């Protein structure tokens, strides 16, 4: 044996330590993988040794390799071994490795429960600390359930070092095991007023995280936090509290009003930018939630905007960025206050930092109005030309389109201008957003009827100059616009000046190099154009032009018939056949135009996104049910050979079908029409949507005469500028006219009041260049209005939505009507086994101030209040705080000592209170100590457990729970949690559990999925009581 150890130690001297490994890796840069694989082999050898120091060294090296990206999950068990070393040095390494490598899927985690529990209750605070830190990284639902009680106890540890860690880890425990939130909450709340600032800030952190997810449950804490906010000087804590208020105010507007003042004070006084930023953000959030019903908040908004302007003007890029970010929040509710800083925002577009430019762009989106849209977009177009790097330029492009198209083109007064902007954007090289421009073109052309004439002309020019767009293979993205151009020209071909020319442009051989889906649209729309041309020449007998057109199609279409793209091929051959047929008719001088046009009759209306999804499934319709029962497989097998011999049969039956007479057919058609009319899924010509188009007057809107032959490029000046100029002129003219009218009115009024000139034009003054009818998207008639299909059902925070003010079944409540509300909780004490800790929360429900309170217990044989040294046997404890009237809640902790046998006992207590007029009152109450309070969650290994059961010292008893329908693991969790048991082993349908009373009595349970509990204990009275309490717990749910 000794020899073996000596050998191990000598080996160890030659082992690589971490430094050697790191150095080695750095020296083997060329063959790192090979070097590391030899290292891993060495590590595997080291892990096989008994020496824990060697193992720890190996695990440390593995942790390093894990960071480099190597899989070390195979060593999980070794990590657990190192974790359970008694030496802090190794334990520390073990926990570090575990926190880096373990996750919920690691199966050895279940082996760690007892080890962690042991470490948590270690007398050495650093052992406990290391265990808590590690656990915070890899806590699983099982661990959370088993250890929740232990950690809760640690929240009242004497050392603040442990307390703060315990408080912080509770958040992770809540997430994994939501049931623990309610019982732990009183203690957590208590920690908000911990004497140690670290513990206090930890508690603030945890409650803030909780409250941010489910704010409504934490409203009652607002007064306490308010006090903290006005008294704390720690910026880290202040930021958290202020953030918390930001989450609470939307639910309680009164709170917001109260907050504004201290927050503005902080904004004025603080020098810390982080705090300033947080305050500004929260003020904005508060004002947003208050936006109605608070008259005097414009000052606060002004203050915020002012401060943000300072941030944006700062040379620090970070502050600039955040300033813009916060500005965009104000913009949503108070656009006017931000719009006055347009100059500053536009300046930011020139910043060398791209992320700042993007933020500024975001802001511009919200800042546009009818008045400044054209100007802003002009600036942006300049930036597009200057921009380096395609990503930023693409971003600019999307922003321009977003800005213009927002809220249904609300800010566009001149659609010719917008179309020309879109056409200009097609000149961008290498953009990825061709489809975006295309969809805008389609959208505008379809929805703004008045613009179609202009749009079609522009698109025709685009088609004619298609070689400019497709010439460069790099500019492939942009050829998407040809898709839109072809469709628009085809669909609205009646507006085309020279359809023949466009048709020719669409059938050029070069088109065959375009992507398939675009070619398909080309072919289809060529047919529409063909129809238009025919109609144009309708009535002319023996029209040469019409026949030439047919010939053109017949000549060019075969190119598409050969296309590799199936859709192009199909459409081309269909249309080719059609045209050939038409040509024959033309040669016979048959009028065809009308019939060909009829092929493309009818409007295509825009359909709202999600329209289909929003139609509710009618009652009684099961979409998963078979319409016709599918033939069973055996049947079809039987049928196959039959069919070979019985070919004649089906023919008969089919012929019978066709014998239906005309009358019957007409009847059926009628029935079908009826059905379709009642069927929400059948797309029919709805009279209501038709109305939108037939609105009187739309057709007769005067359209500004525009020179349709605007070339694609105007030398020297982009053409959208022309519209800008036109628009400005128009507006000035309008303004002048309006003034004239006003003057007239004034003259009529004899100029009694000289009204100042209306100064800056208000939004309403700007009239669109021509009345536009923006068609809204269609929605099915019975669509549901709700839009909340984006919520994540798997959000872990959902489970934490627990109303904490509700009465808690496992903390006991006492209420003295109108005066005092007391909540208390009893826990065994790990340090001293003869004591239990009673936590009490007093809540003053009266209107008067409770100045001093005294608390006393009438000592009995079973229980005694632990009094400070030197106090007499009957002296009472002074409660060390005063209770102002109202909701304020305070917590208080004391220890009571216990002796003799443990049965449920009641302690007679009384509380003396006095208020200002010094009236004394004595309140008597009983604290009910359940047996469970005396149980301490104690780990037990299965072999020890088996020995205990075999010893025969234990008396048995059993219990059946009726009417329980919860999953088995929930049942176990409840027993663990409420009655301080731990699971020793779980095998299929039963689980063994163990707990120990503070006086050392063992309690063993065997819980079966049939919800029967067999219990054994060396103290029969304790056993009976515990079982009764378990029964009670489950009768409550």
């Amino acid at each position, binding site marked *: 044996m000794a020899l073996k150890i000596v050998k191990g130690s000598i080996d160890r001297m030659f082992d690589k330590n971490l430094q050697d490994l790191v150095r080695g890796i750095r020296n083997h840069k060329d063959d790192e993988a090979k070097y590391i694989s030899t290292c891993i082999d060495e590590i595997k050898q080291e892990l096989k040794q008994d020496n824990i120091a060697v193992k720890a060294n190996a695990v*440390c090296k593995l942790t390093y390799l894990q960071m480099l990206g190597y899989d070390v999950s195979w060593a999980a068990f070794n990590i657990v071994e190192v974790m359970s070393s008694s030496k802090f040095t190794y334990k520390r390494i073990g926990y570090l490795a575990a926190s880096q490598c373990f*996750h919920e899927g690691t199966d050895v985690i279940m082996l760690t429960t007892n080890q962690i529990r042991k470490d948590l209750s270690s007398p050495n605070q650093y052992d406990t600390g290391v265990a808590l830190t590690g656990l915070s990284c890899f806590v699983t639902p099982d661990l959370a359930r088993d250890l929740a009680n232990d950690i809760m106890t640690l929240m009242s540890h004497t050392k603040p070092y442990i307390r703060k860690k315990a408080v912080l880890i509770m958040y992770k425990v809540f997430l994994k095991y939501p049931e623990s939130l309610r019982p732990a909450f009183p203690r957590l709340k208590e920690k908000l007023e911990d004497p140690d*600032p670290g513990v206090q800030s930890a508690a603030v952190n945890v409650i803030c995280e909780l409250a941010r997810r489910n704010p409504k449950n934490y409203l009652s804490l607002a007064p306490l936090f308010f006090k903290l906010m006005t008294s704390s000087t720690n910026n880290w804590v202040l930021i958290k509290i202020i953030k918390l208020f930001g989450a609470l105010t939307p639910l309680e507007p009164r709170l917001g009003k109260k907050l504004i003042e201290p927050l503005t004070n902080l904004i004025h006084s603080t020098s810390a930018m982080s705090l300033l930023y947080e305050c500004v953000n929260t003020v904005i959030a508060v004002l947003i939630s208050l936006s109605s019903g608070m008259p005097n908040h414009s000052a606060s908004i002004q203050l915020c905007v002012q401060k943000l302007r300072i941030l944006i003007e700062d040379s620090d890029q*970070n502050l600039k960025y955040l300033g813009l970010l916060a500005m965009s929040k104000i913009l949503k509710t108070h656009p006017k206050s931000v719009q006055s800083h347009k100059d500053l925002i536009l300046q930011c577009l020139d910043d060398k930092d791209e*992320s700042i430019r993007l933020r500024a762009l975001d802001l511009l989106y919200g800042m546009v109005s009818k008045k400044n849209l054209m100007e802003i977009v002009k600036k942006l177009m300049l930036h597009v030309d200057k921009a380096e790097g395609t990503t930023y330029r693409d971003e600019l492009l999307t922003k321009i389109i977003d800005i213009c198209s927002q809220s249904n083109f609300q800010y566009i007064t001149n659609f010719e201008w917008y179309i020309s902007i879109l056409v200009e954007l097609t000149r961008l090289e290498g953009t990825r957003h061709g489809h975006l421009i295309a969809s805008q073109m389609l959208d505008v052309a379809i929805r703004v009827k008045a613009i179609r004439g202009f749009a079609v002309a522009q698109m025709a020019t685009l088609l004619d100059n298609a070689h400019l767009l497709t010439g460069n293979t790099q500019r492939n993205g942009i050829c998407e616009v040809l898709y839109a151009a072809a469709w628009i020209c085809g669909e609205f071909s009646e507006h085309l000046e020279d359809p023949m020319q466009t048709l020719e442009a669409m059938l050029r051989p070069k088109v065959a190099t375009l992507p398939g889906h675009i070619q398909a649209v080309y072919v289809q729309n060529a047919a529409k154009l063909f129809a238009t041309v025919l109609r144009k020449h309708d009535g002319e007998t023996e029209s040469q032009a019409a026949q030439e057109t047919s010939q053109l199609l017949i000549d060019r279409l075969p190119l598409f018939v050969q296309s590799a793209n199936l859709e192009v091929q199909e459409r081309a051959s269909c249309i080719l056949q059609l045209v050939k047929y038409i040509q024959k008719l033309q040669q016979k001088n048959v009028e065809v135009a009308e019939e060909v046009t009829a092929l493309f009759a009818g409007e295509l209306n825009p359909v709202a996104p999600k329209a289909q999804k929003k139609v509710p499934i009618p009652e009684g319709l099961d979409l998963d049910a078979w319409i016709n029962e599918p033939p069973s497989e055996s049947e079809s097998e039987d049928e196959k050979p039959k069919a070979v011999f019985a070919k004649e049969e089906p023919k008969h039956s089919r012929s019978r079908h066709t014998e239906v007479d005309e009358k019957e057919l007409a009847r059926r058609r009628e029935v079908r029409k009826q059905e379709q009319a009642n069927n929400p899924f059948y797309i029919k010509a709805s009279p209501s949507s038709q109305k939108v188009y037939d609105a009187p007057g739309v057709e007769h809107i005067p359209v500004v005469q525009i020179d349709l032959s605007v070339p694609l490029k105007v030398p020297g000046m982009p053409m959208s500028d022309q519209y800008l100029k036109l628009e400005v002129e128009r507006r000035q003219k309008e303004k002048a006219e309006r003034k004239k009218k006003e003057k007239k009115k004034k003259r009529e009024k004899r100029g009694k009041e000289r009204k100042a000139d209306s100064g800056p034009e208000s939004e309403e003054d700007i009239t669109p260049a021509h009345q536009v009818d923006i068609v809204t998207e269609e929605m099915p008639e019975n669509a549901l209005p709700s839009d909340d299909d984006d919520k994540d059902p798997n959000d872990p925070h959902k489970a934490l939505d627990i109303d904490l003010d509700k009465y808690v079944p496992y903390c006991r409540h006492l209420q003295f009507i109108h005066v005092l509300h007391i909540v208390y909780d009893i826990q065994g004490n790990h340090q001293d086994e003869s004591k239990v800790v009673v936590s009490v929360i007093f809540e003053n429900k009266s209107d008067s101030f409770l100045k001093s309170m005294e608390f006393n217990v009438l000592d009995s044989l079973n229980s005694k209040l632990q009094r400070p040294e030197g106090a007499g046997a009957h002296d009472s404890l002074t409660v060390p705080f005063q209770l102002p009237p109202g909701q304020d809640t305070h917590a208080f902790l004391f220890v009571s000592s216990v002796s003799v046998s443990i049965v449920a006992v009641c302690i007679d207590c009384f509380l003396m209170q006095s208020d200002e007029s010094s009236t004394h009152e004595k309140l008597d109450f009983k604290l009910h100590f359940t047996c469970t309070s005396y149980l301490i969650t104690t780990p037990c290994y299965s072999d020890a457990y088996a020995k205990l059961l075999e010893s025969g010292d234990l008396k048995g008893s059993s219990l059946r729970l009726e009417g329980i329908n919860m999953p088995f693991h929930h049942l176990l969790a409840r027993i663990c949690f409420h009655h301080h048991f731990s699971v020793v082993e779980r095998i299929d349908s039963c689980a063994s559990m163990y707990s120990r009373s503070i006086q050392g009595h063992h309690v063993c349970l065997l819980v079966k999925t049939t919800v029967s509990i067999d219990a054994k204990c060396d103290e029969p009275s304790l056993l009976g009581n515990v079982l009764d309490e378990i029964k009670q717990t489950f009768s409550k749910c």
Partner: protein
Amino acid sequence: MMRFMLLFSRQGKLRLQKWYTATAERDKKKMVRELMQVVLARKPKMCSFLEWRDLKIVYKRYASLYFCCAVEEHDNELITLEVIHRFVELLDKYFGSVCELDIIFNFEKAYFILDEFLMGGEIQDTSKKSVLKAIEQADLLQEEDESPRSVLEEMGLA
């Protein structure tokens, strides 16, 4: 709450990673790679914040090392920047003008310091002093573990 913290070098070598939410190994690797690319591609004069997936990234470069934190949408960027700075100060105090090599060769120490400073993605202690004290005490404990054992003792001969 902070989701994770990464330290990596100018060359894109990971020096430290701490994840405060359980993440599968594969996702971790993917995220680290992606994020390193994004951050390293940024120009020196750019601001320290960026939006990435549903997270906010706050990073700062100290000498050859990038310190990079991912925080949630409602977290305060400036305070996160301060957290990074505080961590660097702590490393500096502990190692005595820290450099990248210190962190490479004593990576476990760097983790211990981080663990005393942050836990579960939240700041554990806002006081530098108490963090350093905790580390010192724990180190002392470790030395006690190691020092009294002579080679002979270790061999089981004493």
